[in-house]
């Protein structure tokens, strides 16, 4: 556990959902969970299970149907909206489209709970805004229009906005959803840095399981009937993730946190070789629908080595040579 880490949020048998007319639609059963300061927490769950509703409820945008939420050991219902805005920042998946709005102005709106009646930016507000822009490395974008930013830049500016809001807890609904791979890692790296250096607690929902497992301190795994809470590795060892993939086509490998498709195996192939070449050859053979066998029997593949430039496929009947994996897989595919 980190030093000075103290409980910032706790959910006590919280049930969430929405009202349609007078009937309650409970999305999730009573949930209990905790978050300490400086933690990066990933909320994982299938589409439509209520991750967004959970985050909205935590942000105070939606009434819980039952149970309690405590911020700093004080019940959410005892906070005024203004007080809550000083504790919790929120980013939804909604994209802000305002022409003529500059990056500085958007980040300055994060100071809303701190400024006077007309929203005057005092020196310390300006400092907080510039600080937030520096931390998200968006300082040079100050005078740009928000509508001119790329998806990744806009997301970083949104994060700068809740940094300027100066809250201990940040809630982010799929912060990496629209981003390309580079943007995704940049934003995640930023979140990682903020939780570590600035002791911000960040709770974010994501569909990128591998990223969540490798980067977050804790995972809230939301299932139909319960919430698993713990370090990604703990959940891995408990086999909790298997509940996510009860489908017949996808297998979660709790050994390395990867997925594979549950195909009917077309046969066993052994791969002889070392290092990268062995790894990627095996991966290709898996994709082609074969199982990589542990013992050397026919058929087997020998990867290229110093004395040999070809992938050699040896079977009972003879040996074939391929100069690329692609050629070999094409041949195997036709068989």
């Amino acid at each position: 556990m980190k030093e000075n880490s103290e409980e910032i949020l706790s959910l006590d048998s919280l049930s969430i959902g929405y009202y349609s007319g007078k009937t309650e639609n409970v999305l999730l059963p009573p949930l209990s969970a905790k978050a300490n300061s400086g933690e990066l927490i990933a909320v994982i769950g299938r589409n439509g299970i209520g991750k967004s509703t959970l985050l909205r409820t935590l942000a105070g945008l939606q009434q819980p149907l039952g149970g309690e939420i405590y911020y700093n050991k004080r019940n959410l219902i005892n906070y005024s909206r203004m007080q809550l805005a000083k504790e919790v920042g929120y980013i939804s998946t909604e994209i802000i489209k305002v022409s003529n709005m500059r990056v500085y102005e958007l980040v300055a709106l994060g100071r809303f709970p701190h400024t006077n009646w007309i929203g005057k930016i005092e020196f310390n507000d300006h400092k907080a805004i510039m600080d937030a822009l520096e931390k998200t490395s968006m300082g040079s974008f100050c005078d740009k229009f928000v509508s001119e930013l790329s998806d990744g830049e806009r997301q970083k500016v949104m994060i700068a906005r809740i940094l300027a809001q100066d809250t201990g807890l940040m809630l982010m609904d799929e912060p990496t959803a629209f981003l390309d791979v580079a943007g995704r890692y940049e934003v995640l790296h930023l979140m990682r840095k903020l939780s570590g250096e600035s002791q911000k607690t960040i709770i974010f929902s994501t569909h990128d399981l591998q990223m969540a497992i490798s980067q977050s301190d804790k995972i809230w795994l939301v299932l139909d009937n319960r919430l698993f809470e713990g370090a990604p590795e703990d959940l891995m060892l408990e086999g909790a993730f298997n509940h996510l993939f009860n489908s017949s086509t996808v297998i979660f490998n709790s050994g390395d946190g990867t997925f594979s498709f549950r195909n009917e195996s077309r046969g066993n192939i052994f791969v002889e070789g070392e290092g990268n070449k062995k790894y990627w050859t095996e991966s290709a053979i898996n994709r082609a629908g074969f199982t990589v066998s542990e013992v050397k029997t026919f058929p087997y593949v020998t990867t290229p080595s110093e004395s040999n430039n070809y992938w050699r496929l040896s079977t009972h009947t003879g040996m074939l040579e391929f100069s690329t994996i692609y050629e070999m897989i094409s041949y195997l595919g036709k068989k």
Partner: protein
Amino acid sequence: MIILVILLILDIFFGSVSISASEVIRAIFTHTNSSFETIIMRFRLPKALTALTVGVALSLSGLQMQTIFRNPMAGPYVLGISSGASLGVAFVILGFSSGINGDSINALGNWILVVASWAGAGAIMILIMIISSKVKDIMTLLIIGIMLSSGIGAVVTILQYFSNETMLKAYVIWTMGSLGNLTEGQLTILLISVSAGVIMSILSTKILNALLLGENYARSIGLNVRFARGAIFSCTSILAGSVTAFCGPIGFIGIAVPHIVRIIFKTSDHRLLIPGTILMGGAVMLISDIISQLPGSENVLPINAVTSLIGIPVVIWVILRNRKFSGSF
């Protein structure tokens, strides 16, 4: 600010009787008892003041509506708020106060007129808000606004059908829109209500800035959205309603001026937009009034025609620009 004062004086200067500049200045600041003074103090100054007030009020209400609906096409005229106000007025003129005509409405009658107008404007505001929470598309909302205006027009026609000749005449004259027909009492009421609206607008600066982000974000940074909406709705209804009550529905100023201000200031911060809109709204309306006098001739154009000719190109420009950055305002 200075430009505004110059425009105000220019507006007083031009009219169907040509009066020299020195006469204008002398009439405003001294008592000469000349016929020029009568024309200036009794007709032109009130008219110029009305133009200024109307411009400020309509532009501010347009700015507020564009922000609260997050829609560049919002404005008191296009979304039917002015029509709502005219429905209120129609009820008063055609429905209840039989036997009065446009010239002889007393002070109490004026207040009834203006309150009816506020109520009509407010009712349509709420209706549009309910619709816009279901319909996100800008153009759809615009079409619904046009439909609402036509629907209200139909109701007014029915009212006209059942009313007598005097009342009908008073109402028709009112719908033509005019800056010059206000009595001293009416001008006072207009000035008081619009001043109240302007003060409320300035007080709501921060709220409007927060609402730029949309309801959820506004709430997450600490805004009480229900209160904010109520405040801005009443403010807009007062501004647009008061103007419509006395000057008739005046089109396209409310939608166009905020866009002109945004182009000039290149910002979305209402701390600049509100003062900018107040100044620009007043200026545009004074220019419109000057143009409607047709300087040098004895004819006067209807003010509505002039504002439409100024406003419509801006609206078309905004629509075309919006196709590029869809959805932004």
